[in-house]
């Protein structure tokens, strides 16, 4: 009895499945006139950023977002040799040696931008207290209970800040962190949480936050209502707490269109595209010919001393460092 009812339902379900499987094969594959650029999910260059490239070469560019940098590299390592696209944007120096070891690129990737992860401070909230400058300042009693950092296990600025302390203190970095803990450092899982819930500027109770050296110009650009020209900055940067992050782009191994892909990489590193970077990704262009916008000149501090580590070291030790850090800081 019921079988008679079952049959049509079954048929309908199967038709639906077949339709879906059939139609899902229709992606837009790369071709000589269409390249796929893989990037992390916050890669948002302005509309028309690739127009000049398309005009010059006749190639259109599709952007595939691929999660955060870590997810993107994890995906790329898995699909090494049979990639989802032709060019990858934005592998930073904390991940680049893993990427190179997994042979995801053809040849050496190109440096495309850089930025600094530094402690930022809320000028209004600090009031009379003098702003910190160095890593050692942060352990001073007047900054007790003021700093919020991100967990290096889950956040890329968090990892960068940890690496900065490793570069600064060498084998003694655990002691430095013990002092930070004694000074009541707060650890949260993500940059958004640190900046938008813990930082005093957005209603939290921590006037010091691990963020980027370009956060102050962003605060000025995105202020509402807008600040008058030449207004003083609302946040500042502790200029000797910075870790330098460098991002790379490269042609993916396995792309059928290596020649065109290399043209795209050259365009990404060229002056037209590079000059768009500061005010869309809030990073510094690697290409020295690209002009800096006024907001950066006015509000982004010049970082003269920054910390860095060889990317092989990072790759080899990050797991151990993170675990050691967790044991010290997270009880």
């Amino acid at each position, binding site marked *: *009895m019921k079988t008679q009812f079952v049959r049509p339902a*079954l048929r309908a379900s199967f038709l639906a499945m077949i339709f879906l499987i059939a139609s899902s094969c229709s992606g837009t594959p790369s071709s000589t006139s269409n390249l796929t650029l893989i990037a992390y999910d916050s890669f948002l260059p302005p509309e028309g950023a690739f127009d000049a490239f398309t005009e010059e070469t006749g190639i259109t560019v599709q952007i*595939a977002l691929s999660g955060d940098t870590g997810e993107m590299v994890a995906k790329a390592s898995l699909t090494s040799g049979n990639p989802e696209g032709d060019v990858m944007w934005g592998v930073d120096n904390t991940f680049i040696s893993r990427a190179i070891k997994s042979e995801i690129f053809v040849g050496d990737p190109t440096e495309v931008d850089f930025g600094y992860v530094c402690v930022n401070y809320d000028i209004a909230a600090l009031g009379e207290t003098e702003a910190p400058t160095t890593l050692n300042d942060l352990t001073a009693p007047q900054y007790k209970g003021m700093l919020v950092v991100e967990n290096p296990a889950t956040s890329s600025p968090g990892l960068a800040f940890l690496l900065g302390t490793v570069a600064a203190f060498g084998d003694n970095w655990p002691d430095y962190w013990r002092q930070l803990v004694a000074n009541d450092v707060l650890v949260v899982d993500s940059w958004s949480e640190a900046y938008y819930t813990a930082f005093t500027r957005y209603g939290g109770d921590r006037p010091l936050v691990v963020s980027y050296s370009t956060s102050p110009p962003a605060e000025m650009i995105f*202020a509402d209502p807008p600040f008058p020209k030449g207004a003083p900055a609302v946040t500042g940067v502790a200029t000797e707490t910075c870790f330098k992050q460098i991002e790379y782009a490269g042609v993916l191994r396995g792309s059928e269109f290596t020649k065109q892909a290399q043209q795209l990489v050259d365009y990404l590193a060229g002056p037209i595209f590079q000059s768009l970077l500061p005010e869309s990704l809030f990073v510094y262009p690697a290409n020295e010919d690209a002009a800096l916008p006024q907001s950066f000149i006015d509000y982004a501090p010049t970082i003269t001393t920054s910390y860095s580590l060889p990317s092989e070291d990072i790759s080899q030790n990050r797991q151990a460092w993170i675990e050691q850090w967790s044991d010290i800081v997270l009880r």
Partner: protein
Amino acid sequence: MRLRSTSPLAIPAVILVLIAAVIPLIVLSASVISGADVISIWSKSSVQRALIFSTWQALLSTALTICLGLPTTWFLSRYEFFGRQVFMALVTVTFVLPTVAVGAAFLALLPKGLHHSTMAIVVAHAFFNISIVVRTVGPRWNSVDDRLIDCAQTLGASPLHIWQSIILPLGKSAILSSAALTFFMCFTSYGIISILGGPGLATLDIEIYRRAVQLGDLSGAAILAVAQMLLIVTIFFIWSRGRTSELISFRSRTLNPQKLPLGPKCFLFGVAAFFVAPVLALIASSMRTGRSWSLTGWRVLLGIQNQKGIEIDTWQAMQTSAKYALIAAGIALPTGIAATYAFSHRQSANRQLSTLTILPLAISPVVIGLAILITYDFDPFDFRSSWLLIPIIHSAIALPFVIRAALPVVQGIPNDLRLAAATLGAGSWRRLLTVEIPLLRPAISTGFAFSLAMSLGEFGATSFLTRRESRTLPIIIAGLFGRAGEIPRATGMAASVVLILVTAMIVLSVDRKSYS
């Protein structure tokens, strides 16, 4: 006249689960797991901590969710009162709230002492999961005849006794289902815990993400993912074996027009406040920049004001979100309800199959994303660049919800009705349209609302597979919350409000007739 076998009806659902979860996980495991890790991974302290924490916070969260959810469900499914529809929509909408926004709202509402505590997590989990209870148990209780309760009263049963001996037992299978779903939602919770929990508190899912992404330990991540899947399936297997479905005839009933007594009113008011407060906090912060009120966030979001550095197309995102959600529901509903027919039959093989459909929920989205990537990477099955992959994954995630919402309803349809329709000469297609579908309406609307909500709010798998020009609302929100400044923050809050409103409207329009 009995059906010989309904098992074939489960095939589409099984195929969906195999394609979207099982096969990719097997392929991934085979290619990345190294034998030595299988034992050694368990001695890592972070793994042990995650395992213990996952379990006990999930137990606690489930208990609170059920305690708050059952009375709420009873009043919602039995009484007509002013604002009932809105309340239903509100409860469902929480399901899709972006965790970043809700996390911020919760932090604003909770006293400082509870920040970064297990308590905060448990409360937030209850907030997110009450709709599972309302949606699963509601249709069941709605079909309980009032006079059954009158009858128990005349036999001397007090209200408390009626709950114990009539109301709870009649909802038992639905309650257990919803408890199980809630448990696994909490066990695999990701966003809530990473925002409210703080760095010391990590679930197994977070540990899997950390290993896969930050540490590059794919082998460890895959082992943990497989282990989590086996654990959940085992528990579900044991769970579904011990249960028999009660026999209860399905009866569409009108809601009690009587006024709610004062006690329940206060209770519902409290629950409503619990749901409204974070949403209000969210709306308020979407209109606040710095220390003043401003609509700039909304203007940027709606494209009225152009803001250099913020590139979003809200209409496109809403269209994309709606498209994915509709396709996901279009896949999950027929497959899920068809499968429900197979599972509602009391044949042990089928019931055990129903365990399988929980799988998509049991595997971390990061692992699914990675696994799919290396499974379907050869012609003609190179699906990696196909946008359809996203709604297909969404539908697999929604599938267990559709099945569990439909099961009590399908079990309640008396076979006599079908026979009666057949004797009146209705053909199989007509019978499907005129008899089954109207009776299934509560299941269809519940399943539809669930699938839409799951898809609209999904972030993990989506962020892995998006194209720049087809970003969904949650992806846009995460992007906005990822940069510094008052305008991106306010715009992100406004986008969250839009996501809530869009979902609420869809759910409301689908839902209007669910209990009548």
